[in-house]
């Protein structure tokens, strides 16, 4: 296990790249999934298209998804944007359902109360329905975060950075390097998960106040 200490700089660099490639898709995915989740909750026909579509997208193997991106995006084969968009698609596919379920779980009388107070639909959505959907959304985000952190390593098969590079280099020379990457992955996943749980608590103070 000495590799990680003797090559701390390389480990940190891989960690930075890995974190970047995993977290940006979670954020982008959230931004894209909120309106789509809203749509899926509002309209039956939208839901009938979005839900099966997101299920199928989720089955596309990650390596294939990453390498198909240059064809779809016109990007270069080695660009990080390929893996970022690919993971964003998985995140959206996962979150749409969570957000729709979360919005669906908002009790009708709460919506009615907001209406009675004169909230316009956009304000009601942003300040009442969306916050109440936070717990379910956070649950989805946690799954997305962890699976993204685990999936980024696939990008190493086409030369992208992160812990996957450590797996491949370790495979070719030194098993210690694989363990360094593996431990890094688990630690990042753990930290990401704890941060999301914290965010969930900060964003839903009423959950604790009610106890």
């Amino acid at each position: 296990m000495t590799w990680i200490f003797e090559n701390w700089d390389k480990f940190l660099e891989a960690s930075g790249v890995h974190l970047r490639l995993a977290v940006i898709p979670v954020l982008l995915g959230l931004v894209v999934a909120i309106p789509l989740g809203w749509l899926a909750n509002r309209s039956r026909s939208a839901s009938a298209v979005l839900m099966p579509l997101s299920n199928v997208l989720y089955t596309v193997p990650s390596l294939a998804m990453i390498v198909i991106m240059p064809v779809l995006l016109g990007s270069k084969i080695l660009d990080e944007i390929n893996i970022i968009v690919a993971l964003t698609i998985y995140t959206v596919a996962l979150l749409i359902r969570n957000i729709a379920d979360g919005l669906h779980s908002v009790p009708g009388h709460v919506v009615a109360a907001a209406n009675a107070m004169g909230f316009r639909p956009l304000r009601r959505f942003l300040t009442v329905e969306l916050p109440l959907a936070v717990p379910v959304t956070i649950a989805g985000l946690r799954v997305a975060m962890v699976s993204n952190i685990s999936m980024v390593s696939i990008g190493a098969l086409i030369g992208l950075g992160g812990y996957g590079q450590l797996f491949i280099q370790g495979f070719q020379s030194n098993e210690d390097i694989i363990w360094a990457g593996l431990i890094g992955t688990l630690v990042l996943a753990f930290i990401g998960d704890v941060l999301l749980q914290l965010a969930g608590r900060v964003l839903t103070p009423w959950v604790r106040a009610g106890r």
Partner: protein
Amino acid sequence: MGWLFDPAHWSGSTGIPVRIVEHFTYTWLTLLIAAVIAVPLGAFVGHTGRGGFLIVGLTNGLRALPTLAVLIIVVLWAGIGDVPVYTALVLLAVPPIMAGTYAGIRAVEPSIVDAARGVGMHEGGVLLQVELPNALPLVFGGFRGAALQVVSTATIAAYVGAGGLGRFVFDGLAFQEYDQMLGGAVLVAVLAVLVDLVFVGLQKLTVSPGVVGAGSGGNR
């Protein structure tokens, strides 16, 4: 999409049908092994109520485990072949099945369980005849989630020289033939949908119509 419909690719020892069978074998055998491990564990913890935090922690921890790394490490230890492939895939399939079983049993109405005990059922009978049948919708949800991940991830096995539909994705990448890679990806997606449909069918056949939520597909 020409690649997919070229009859030349549908024959021979490295043709599409052979790869589909390999991929499907990886899938069902993985699910079987994972079921043997995960269902009793999830059922036990769900029934006794002890060690629930362990299930949740283990599930999340395993979910973060990168399949590529597991595959590589097992190859270094045990050589190439089936062992690394199944190890990596089983580790992937255990968390959703275990979580589904656990959640399913926890969600059974306590009054039903009490009633079963009240008519003099043994704990084993309570678990097998009352709790598990009532938990089936969520158990199936777990299996469907696991199956989806296994079908999609079995692709990676080709990295260490294994077969399956991943062969087309990796070979397509190696030759820079996008239609071969795309063809492989489409086949994986189709297989995943078919496997999911099989589970939907099984669920319809095995879940008692009296069980609440029998129609829902679990958490996915």
